């Protein structure tokens, strides 16, 4: 059931205290394309110094880069309402340190103006094993992985090999089958969390070289003048490996005159309007796709064309 076009995509970012949520939010605020609305628990740790416009009640700020920052001090529902009123291109919500991201994500499922894109939960590699053992917070931390589409095992640089292995094992138990990406300072490309114009996506991910780390994000592209069979591509999209984190771009089908916009994330996908409705540059009918994977060496063409049955 694909949502009607013109809904606002929402991503929810959760995780316990100290897992790196605020670091990630600040990064996204700095890197996201304009008209991104970011909902945070309090402005205390968010860089709103760059604010150019204050709503007057101190609950909404517009930043110089065109992003919008909303406080949830008066509740999630009204923060969402204020964000929607600003007609953002996308909304990112940071949950509280004890919040359940899946519960917060329900707001996006309820409101026809919104569309749930991705639920991301961060974990602190150095402290996750101890947190899960803590009688005060263990169950709270464990619940935060319920329904996460993507898990960032963050601060791996601060964790010893034992803690890191224990954290990996815990996540396999708590979130079986969900992709886990190991990060430092929550460094992920904004494009991963932002369903945006494809041009942004073409920019190479940055800053993922760390001493002793390989690149953790691998951009892929596919340009193909051969149109796709709709049914066959849908079958292929349902079988993409977990290591493929996001796929988007234009697909030329055999049964349509213009390429259609594809948005695929974590096994959920939809086809948007064709290029004419979308105001995309008038280009030759061809498929142009980009993806981000967490492992190297994926062959996008083989994955999408490999459906010979």
């Amino acid at each position, binding site marked *: 059931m694909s949502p009607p076009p013109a809904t606002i995509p929402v991503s929810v970012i959760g995780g316990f*205290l100290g897992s790196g949520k605020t670091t990630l939010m600040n990064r996204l605020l700095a890197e996201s394309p304009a008209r991104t609305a970011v909902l945070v628990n309090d402005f205390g740790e968010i860089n709103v110094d760059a604010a150019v416009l204050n709503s007057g009640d101190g609950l909404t700020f517009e930043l110089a880069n065109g992003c919008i920052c909303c406080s949830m001090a008066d509740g999630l*529902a009204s923060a969402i309402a204020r964000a929607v009123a600003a007609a953002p291109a996308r909304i990112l919500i940071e949950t509280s340190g*004890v919040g359940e991201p899946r519960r917060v994500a329900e707001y996006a*499922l309820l*409101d*026809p103006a919104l569309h749930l894109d991705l639920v991301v939960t961060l974990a602190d590699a150095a402290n996750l094993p101890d947190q899960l053992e803590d009688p005060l917070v263990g*169950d709270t931390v464990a619940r935060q992985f319920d329904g996460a589409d993507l898990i960032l095992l963050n601060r791996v640089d601060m964790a010893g090999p034992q803690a890191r292995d224990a954290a990996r094992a815990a996540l396999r138990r708590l979130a079986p089958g969900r992709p886990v990406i190991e990060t430092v300072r929550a460094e992920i490309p904004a494009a991963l969390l932002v369903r945006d114009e494809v041009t942004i996506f073409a920019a190479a991910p940055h800053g993922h070289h760390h001493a002793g780390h390989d690149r953790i994000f691998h951009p892929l592209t596919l340009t193909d003048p051969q149109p796709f069979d709709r049914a066959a591509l849908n079958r292929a999209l349902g079988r993409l490996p977990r290591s493929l984190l996001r796929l988007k771009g234009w697909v030329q089908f055999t049964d349509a005159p213009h390429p259609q916009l594809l948005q695929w994330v974590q096994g959920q996908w939809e086809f948007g309007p064709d290029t004419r409705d979308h105001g995309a540059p008038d280009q030759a009918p061809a498929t142009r796709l980009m993806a981000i994977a967490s492992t190297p060496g994926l062959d996008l063409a083989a994955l999408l064309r490999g459906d010979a049955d």
Partner: protein
Amino acid sequence: MSEPIKVFRARKILTMARNRPVATHVAIREGRILAVGDAEDAAGWGAPIDDRFADKVLMPGLVEAHCHAMEGAVWADTFLGFFPRHSPEGSLEGGIRSIEDAVQRLQRAEAALTDPDQPLLAWGFDPIYYGGARMTRHDLDRVSTTRPVLVMHASFHIMNVNTVVLDRGGLFQVTGVEGILRDGQGDVTGELQEMAAMQYARQAVGAKFALTETSIASLRRFGRSATNAGVTTCTDLYAPLDDAALDAYVAATTAEDFPVRIAPAMAAAAWAPEAGIARMAVLKERANDKFHPGLVKVMTDGSIQGFTARLKWPGYHNGAPNGIWNQPPAVLKAQMKAYNAAGIQMHIHVNGDQASEFAIDCLAEALAEAPFPDHRHVLQHCQMADAAQFRRMAALGIAANLFANHIYYWGDQHAALTMGPDRARRMDACGTAMAEGVRFAMHSDAPITPLAPLFTAWCAVNRQTATGRELGPEEKISVADALHAITLGAAWQLRLDHVVGSIEVGKYADFAVLEDDPTGIAPQALKDVRIWGTILGGTPHQSAIGAA
């Protein structure tokens, strides 16, 4: 030139003061108690005797140290409680014995509405008493098929709505949201659980439950409820106290005829600690003799009957998972340390025994780092604290405000579902608190349960559930101890025991005016004591409930 002296004569005056526990006459000047005594004493006061209360019993004005000003706001909507309850205006509401009853009550309320688009809102609905029957949208469609109808449950965590609300919110099409219940055939029932679904439905039809507003009008209704219950001093134990609420408070309490003194507790979660501490100074500048800011409220866990309280091993009796923290424990600890170091008295919401233990641990650390003599920090509800926790509380000077009303209203459910028969016996353990030397009060948490300290005292004295079972008789306390708890005990917790809570020279002339003597009846009859009203600062205020 001082005001003239006013002297009231009563059948009996229970002073709660050690040096003269019982009297018959009290002299008042400038709103304060000038003298207390008998007829012989009064002969020397040189003032005419006012006999209007000659057949009544006077007590210190009752003190409710855990309630919410929301009590004055909720009554704007229709009450659907299982137990009958008086509205501030004195009408008997609720007493809803079945879903059919609820529908009929709503139909009457609907007929009274003139604006065809106005949503019909109700609160206090508690199907736990209706033998497993559940309300559906089809029930509420019999109330209206054109107007949104929203029924909030007593827990405030579940709501029933009619088809209009589901249609306008597009909720028939939504999938993947746990909070939208469906029946065996997959039909959306109209029962919405948890905040996301409830808030969204409310927004979709522009329905605004009255319960969150702090206005002059809602505070005045709150004052009426207090008068009906014999209460002259209370709190609003989780007040946002933003500028608008503060202005409403100041305006309401400075009115000559406002009948209650309020010591609100600022919601800690609404401010970063530094900002909250700074805010407290601003609040105190606006204080007056009926408005006593200075307290702060910290929320740790949820509620036992909602399965959101934090419990120690072995957890919930029915195997439900452990509850929730409102904020990460580390954040709560930092909050408690900051307010303690600033010398601000805290009221800390703790329902489960893991939450009470955590709060005691935090306070032990906070007080070691920043000693705060006579701090009076209070654990609120504190329903499951065990004897060892009470001993630590006594050692640290931490008080308890116990939710005795729970014994009556949810005691049966606690024995059956949440705590099990054994732990339920020690819920709201006034007896243990006393034995271990913990200063305690007890409360209604109005509007969660009715504002009525004499009923609360009855609960602590008799420990009887709604079905008549006795829950933990070893935790009973005497009538005298219960009366102390709802006067001086609660006044001390609000840091107002130097001006209210007993009938002594120099204190405010605040009284509960009773038709019956609570010390002269059977302990089982304590809840039936009839209340004429109150006297505040020497001015009588009559209850709206006919003392028939």
